[in-house]
């Protein structure tokens, strides 16, 4: 019996990654809040119809990065950026790029469910109405489809005109996802979408995210590493504003390349 080690694993996933089309291509992205640099030379590609998880300790820049993808971060007046983020080949920082147009294609779901103080129906119909859809028949179809895609239709179909605040936290979050889907985005950004939810609601949202990946590209920031491991295809680990490691989720959670990633995911700091 010879003990000459021969690796049996031949990872060909890198080759297949090359062939997939990218929704975002981030190159040399730096971001400052005033004098403080929050993102340092980030380079990464986000692939279409995949779930990309972003993990890292508090203050590592992961939420900032997410909010940069739809330029929401610019709502903070002291922010400056350098580098490029190409969304389907176009630099989102170009002067002629419309922010509204970008945000139509790149929707966002937040940590705490934030339905409007309106009916369930109005919450979902709000976006399409702003985009000029007026006919009730068309709006009805959009509302039904969005609620179905957000896996909440069966729970709300008989009370569409009741106030959304009457829903549970988990239902409100799925309603917010439905509201996001109603304007037919390509990408959904999720900022800790289950951190305010109980375990069953969390599971429902996770299952929903899995279903949504067939039609959408999803980027999800999460503090829950098991959630990142369960739901995502790719995982990025941020630390102190740097992208330390970005790889296939199975690889990152079983055998990360960087010692800092290993220490973080095994709970040895953070």
């Amino acid at each position: 019996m010879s003990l000459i080690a021969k690796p049996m694993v031949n990872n060909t996933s890198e080759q297949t990654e090359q062939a997939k089309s990218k929704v975002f291509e981030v190159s040399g992205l730096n971001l400052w809040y005033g004098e403080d640099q929050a993102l340092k030379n980030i380079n990464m590609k986000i692939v279409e119809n995949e779930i990309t998880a972003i993990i890292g300790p508090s203050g590592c820049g992961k939420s900032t990065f997410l909010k940069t993808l739809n330029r929401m971060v610019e709502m903070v007046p002291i922010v400056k950026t350098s580098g490029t983020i190409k969304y389907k080949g176009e630099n989102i920082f170009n002067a002629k790029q419309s922010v509204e147009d970008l945000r139509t294609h790149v929707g966002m779901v937040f940590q705490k469910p934030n339905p409007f103080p309106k009916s369930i129906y109005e919450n979902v119909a709000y976006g399409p109405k702003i985009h000029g859809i007026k006919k009730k028949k068309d709006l009805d179809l959009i509302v039904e489809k969005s609620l179905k895609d957000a896996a909440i239709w069966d729970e709300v179909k008989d009370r569409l005109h009741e106030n959304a605040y009457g829903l549970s936290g988990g239902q409100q979050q799925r309603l917010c996802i439905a509201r996001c889907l109603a304007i037919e985005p390509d990408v959904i950004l999720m900022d800790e979408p289950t951190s305010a939810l109980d375990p069953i609601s969390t599971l429902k949202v996770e299952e929903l995210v899995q279903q949504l990946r067939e039609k959408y590209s999803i980027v999800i920031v999460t503090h829950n590493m098991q959630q990142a491991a369960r739901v995502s295809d790719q995982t990025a680990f941020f630390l102190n504003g740097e992208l330390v490691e970005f790889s296939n989720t199975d690889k990152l959670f079983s055998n990360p390349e960087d010692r800092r990633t290993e220490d973080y995911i095994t709970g040895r700091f953070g």
Partner: protein
Amino acid sequence: MTIRNQFDGELNEVKTLIHELANGADNALKNAVESLYHRDVEKAQEVVDRDNDLDKKELDIHDKTILLIAKQQPVASDLRRLVIALKISSDIERMADHAVNIAKATIRLGENHGLTVHPKISQMAEKARDMASLAIKAFEYEDISLARQLSGLDDEIDEMYGLVIREMLDETASNPQMNQYIMEMAFSARFIERYADHITNIGENIFYLVKGETYNLND
């Protein structure tokens, strides 16, 4: 900053149990082979009787490890540590079973068979015990250079086993009335050879623990 004191503490408890299990298997082999040489049926019976304790210890390791996985949800090298704790404990339990098989052969041979036990069997057992000690050290220090040495020792045991079997076959030709006894001796050599193979499995697991990749060490 280490913030997983509870996890590390419980992992160390599992490691301690694995050490105890390994000591138990080592004692079983030592006593089984001694009883074979000294035709000591009583001692052989003790080896058989003590095996229950080792079986229980293996189950205890499994229970603790599975609970630790459920409670702490480890990933990466921490998860590999626990997975190989499960695998290594099963290998060591099987090693103890092989020692028990030698003890049972001793009991079947009885005290009056009149045959001399082949001296190589004792040498095989000593070599296997050295291997086990090396493997446990490699596990403790997560040291693949120690694990790598196991294959050379295993090759030596395989060679001695081949020699014993050839000589036993010759013996059956010249002493056919003793075939039943000679077979028990040959089986005992076989049990030590299998004992050593389980130690090589432990070596493979240590490679997996350290490198995170599956290695084929059986060419």
